[in-house]
Each structure stands twice: as C-alpha cells, then as structure tokens.
C-alpha cells in the first residue's frame, strides 16, 4: 500500500511538472507537442550528471546538480521549438513531432556512443547511475520520500502565483487569448511566447529525469518516455489549463500509472490474473475516456496554435 502511494505521488509529480510546462506554453499561445522530446533531453542531462558526479558528494548537492542539468538541457532543447514555431511560423504539430523523434534518436545515439567509447562490447542504451541515484530519496519508515515530490509541489504553487498574481503571468495569458490586443497595449508577443516555451522546457526537463529515475531498473533511452509527455497533455486538458486542477488530475493519472508498477503486490489484484498489458494500457485508456468527456467544453487559450504575425489582423 505504501508502495502504491509512493509511486502514485512520484508519477503524479512527473505529470504535474510536465503538464505545467505545457500549460505555460499554451497560455502563451504555442502548442508544445514536443514535451515528450524535451523530457527525454532533460532525462539525458540529469542521467549523465548522475553518472559522472562523485557518489561522495553531499546528497543535496547531487539533487540540485541533477535538477540544474535537466533544466539546462530542457531549455536548450526547447529553443529549437521556439525558433521554428514563433519566429519562422512553422507548423507547430509537425515541429513538435519532429522534436520527439529527434530527441529519442539523439539520446540513444549519445548514450550508446558513450557506452561504446568506454567498452566496445557495451552496446546498451542505459546510463549507469545506481550509486548516485540513492541521493534522490530519503527513506521515512517504509516510505521512500523523493526530493522531486517536493520540487513538483513547489512548482505547482509557483505556477499558480506566477500565472494569476503577477504582471508577467497575466501578460503571458493575454498573448494566448488575443495576441493582437496584447500587442496593441505594448506587450511584446514574441518575447512572451519565447518565455512560455522556455519555461515549458525547464519544467518538462525536470519531469523527464523524475520519470526515468522513478522505476527500480535503469532506463533504456531507446524507448523515449513512453508517451508520458502526451499523458501530461491529457492531464493539462483535463485540468482545464488551471494549475490547481492539473495537480488533482495528475494524482488521478499517477494512480493508474502506479498500479501497473505494483499490481502484483496486491493479493486480490494478482488473484484476478489480468495480464500485465492491461495495467500498462490503463493510463492511456483512462485518458482517452477523460478527454472524450472534457474536450467539448474545453477552455483552451483561444489563440493557441496560431503563429502570431504582426501584419495580419
């Protein structure tokens, strides 16, 4: 039971971080379908930090270094989306998809090359970080508290404050609702959209490293992040682009994702003898159902997905 709560909170943290990332980007008017790819890049940055940092470093420094690395990788990678979608007015769906594929391929190539350079017989796509990974968790009884849970909570509160209580947040949202109006009162729409995309890169980057370190085993970079970036988008839609609702939605989705990790530990679930694939499918099925019920009255930012062109009316 403790294990179920632990995994629920952990996967909910991932979803909160990434969905908030999507939320910032969409409020500024850019649909970020590349979240999945940004997660992979953030995960790569974090994982490599875990690999190369000395295990004797104080735990808190390891945590901070990992977060910093994930943030930097995520932000740098999201620049590719910002340039293409904001300045060059490319198709946002196409660019997002390209970034997802690019991240999975690039991360696999990088990890494999590093492994092969160390040992020509090692052609796996995993990063070794068993020792340093222990720094991320603090055992409280049988519950493994993970620092990233705290990070997600802070991000959630900050997102609420920034979006609704600051000048920056309100201006950001104006750019996603009616960019022409925002521009007419002197807000630079391009700058705001850049800010939205870079913030989403930052949050999704952290989400990526949380996701791959959540499980027990080491992560294979070949598989990317298994559609989690898109689950986060479903969470965001279910949460109607509002931080608090996103937090609640993330816990619901996190629960179903956690079930697939721990179902065999529950006697009554194991006795039902349902194949593991069914549990694996569960989060995706739930999100389809949820989307079907929530999308028709969605409160999506009105101008999202439309490149802003100063000259058009």
């Amino acid at each position: 039971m403790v294990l179920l709560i632990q995994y629920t909170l952990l996967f909910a943290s991932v979803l909160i971080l990434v969905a908030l990332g999507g939320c910032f980007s969409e409020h500024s008017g850019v649909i970020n379908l590349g979240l999945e790819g940004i997660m992979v890049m953030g995960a790569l940055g974090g994982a490599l930090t875990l690999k190369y940092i000395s295990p004797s470093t104080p735990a808190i420094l390891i945590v901070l270094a990992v977060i910093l690395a994930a943030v930097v990788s995520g932000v740098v990678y999201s620049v590719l989306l910002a340039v293409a979608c904001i300045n060059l007015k490319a198709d946002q769906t196409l660019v997002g998809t390209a970034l997802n594929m690019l991240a999975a391929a690039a991360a696999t190539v990088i990890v494999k090359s590093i492994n092969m350079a160390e040992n020509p017989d090692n052609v796996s796509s995993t990063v070794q970080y068993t020792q340093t990974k222990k720094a991320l968790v603090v055992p409280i009884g049988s519950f493994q508290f993970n620092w990233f849970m705290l990070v997600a909570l802070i991000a959630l509160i900050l997102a609420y404050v920034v979006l609704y209580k600051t000048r920056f947040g309100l201006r950001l949202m104006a750019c996603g609702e009616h960019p022409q109006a925002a521009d007419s009162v002197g807000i630079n729409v391009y700058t705001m959209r850049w800010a939205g995309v870079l913030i989403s890169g930052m949050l999704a980057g952290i989400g990526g490293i949380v996701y791959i370190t959540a499980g027990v085993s080491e992560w294979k970079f070949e598989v990317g992040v298994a559609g989690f970036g898109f689950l986060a988008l479903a969470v965001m839609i279910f949460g109607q682009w509002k931080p608090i609702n996103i937090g609640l939605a993330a816990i619901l989705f996190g629960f179903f994702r956690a079930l697939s990790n721990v179902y065999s530990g529950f006697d009554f679930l194991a006795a039902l003898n349902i194949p593991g694939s069914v549990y694996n499918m569960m989060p995706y099925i739930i999100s389809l159902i949820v989307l079907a019920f929530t999308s028709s009255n969605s409160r999506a930012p009105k101008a999202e997905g439309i490149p802003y062109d100063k000259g058009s009316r």
Partner: protein
Amino acid sequence: MGSSDNSKNSFLAKPAVQSILAAILCIIIGLFVGYIALLIINPKGATEAIITILKNYFTYPTKAAAMKYLGNTLVKAAPLLMCALSIQFCYQAGLFNIGAAGQYVAGAGAALFGALSLKLPWIVCLLAALIAGGVFGIIVGLLKSYLNVNEVISGIMLNWIGLYTVNMLLSGVKETASPYTVQVASVNESALLPSLGLEKLFSNNKYVTIAIPLAILVAILIKVILSKTVFGYEIKATGMAKDAAKYSGMKEKRNVIITLFIGGALAGIGAAFLFLSGYEQWSVTQSSVPSMGFNGIAATFLGGLDPIGTIFASYFIQHITSGGSYLDKNIYPSQISDFISAIIIYLCGFVLFFKLYLNNYLRNRQERAKERKEGGKR
C-alpha cells in the same frame, strides 16, 4: 538575356520545382548534421560511415547480392509508403494523423492473428488488417468530430493501447523459445502474399511480393482521388477552411471520419504488406510502438505532401534507415539513421518559410529586371 532570365524565374516559381528543391535542401542539411554527429562520435571512420549509410546495398560487390538487398529495402519501403500516404491523406483534411503508428500496429495484429491463429488466406488477412487499421482511425475521427478531442493526443493514446492489445493478442501464436511470433511460411503458406514472379528480378529474394507494386498503385490512386474527384476536393476544402466547407454544404463531420477511416486502412494495409511477406516477425514483448508510422511523417513531408513525391521520399528514408544497419556496430549506433530522418522532418517545418522567401526573392528580382528594361528603353 532578358528572356532566359524570365524562363529561369518561371522555372523556379513552379510549386513542384520548389518542393523538390526544398526536399533536396532538407536532405543535404540532414545528412550534413548526421555527418557532424558521426565526426563527434569517432572522427576516423566518419566519412566511411556516412558513405556506408548512403550506399546501403551497394556495399555488396556483386550485382546479384546488391539486387537481393535492394529487394529487402523495397520490402520495407512499401509499408513505409503506405504509412506516409495515410498521414498525407489525413493532412489534406487538416488532420495530423500521428495515430498512423497505432493503426499500423492494429493492422499487423489483425493480419498475423488471421494468418497464424485462424489460418486464413492472404486476401482475407489483408482485408482484416484494412478493417483493423480503419477502426482505429474511425475512433480518432469520432472523438475528433463529435467530442472535439485533439487527434494528435487521442492518436498517441491509441498507439499505446494498440501496442499492448496486439502484444496480448499475438502471445498465443509466438514461438515457444522466443518472444517472436511463428514464421508465417511454416504455419500457413497460403497467408503469404503472392509474388507473381517478381522475386526473380531480385535474385530470388522471396520477400519481394506484389506489395511493392501495389503500394505504388495506391499512391497513384490517392493522387487521382485528391486531384480529380469531388470527394478529394471536399477533403482539401475541409482542410483549408473547415467552416467555409461546412457553410457550402459539405458534411465536414462525415468527411473527417471517412478520411481517418481511409488513413487508418492505408496504415493497416501497410502492416499487412510487411508481415504477410514473412520478412519480419512480431515481438510480443516489445515495449515501444514500431517506428514505421513515425517515419511515415518524415516521408510524407519530405515528399512535399504529394503522393508521387512521397514514393521517392519513402524509398529514400528507407534507404538510409537500411544503410544505417551496415555501420560498424562497435563504433557507431545504427540509430544515427533515425537521427538523420528526424533532422529532416524538423527541417521540413521550414519548407513553407523557404517557399515564401524564395517567392519574395523571385518577385523582387522580376520587378528589378522590369525596371531595368524600361529604363533601357527610355
């Protein structure tokens, strides 16, 4: 002098020429970035490695062997073309069918289940794949047109649902010692696609079947539907301006659903083209969605969103993907080909910008030339 300038202008101004130029530019930049990546990994063999990727089957010294492996590349290019057409057809209606990957998975599941478990002949298996892929497409279409669910997100969800369902479905017909499904040829030979003697052209490569010419025929058919029929016109109108299409009496909801059914069916048939040739077996423990559907996105945009262009683009993408497998596995990861394809798709996002820029440039030059001419007269 002036007349040759003008003819050059009008040549560059043709949309087809611009698309081809843009595609070639994307390929060159993509390969260049790939080459840089190879240089970073290991500078010594990088030049040889990029040549290996480009040569693909030409690395074989004899013509017979090269033809045989050309056959293998074509066997995989056919399903890729089908996935690319699936995405393209939907894109014309303004729908981004990223669910093609899942529709492909559904088709693979239906085709293999029909062939291995129910022991059906190939034509029935092909039909089953068509329907399975189509049903996956219809789900996306219904969700999109009646419940306003974004087709990209529902498509991705269905990709994973499809993957796990097919893994479960096919676990009954797998080899006892491996996670792979049993060979189609060993259980039910009637399920193999007929070759009609095509294999003789490719040094008796038994995987070469009617799938290859059929895929090309389908591409031509799609071209005709889109450019010559009322249905094709309605689809394109829905893609360009949904509300205008609705206002002028087109049933846009129905069109969305039919479009996604056709898209799904195309991807499903694509899977049958591969798995009913016996070239590949399905691994029931695979934990990621096959990349065929995603590579289709690369092929369709590289092909300039034109079915005929896509034939060549699909071949090219498969050519470098197959070429990647000839790399020295202890120095370079074969995923470098996926990396190059991904760069190419990313660059395709700039194609519109490129065309706009080119057209502006041409217009300016023409105006300048005109001014010069008039000035000379005076």
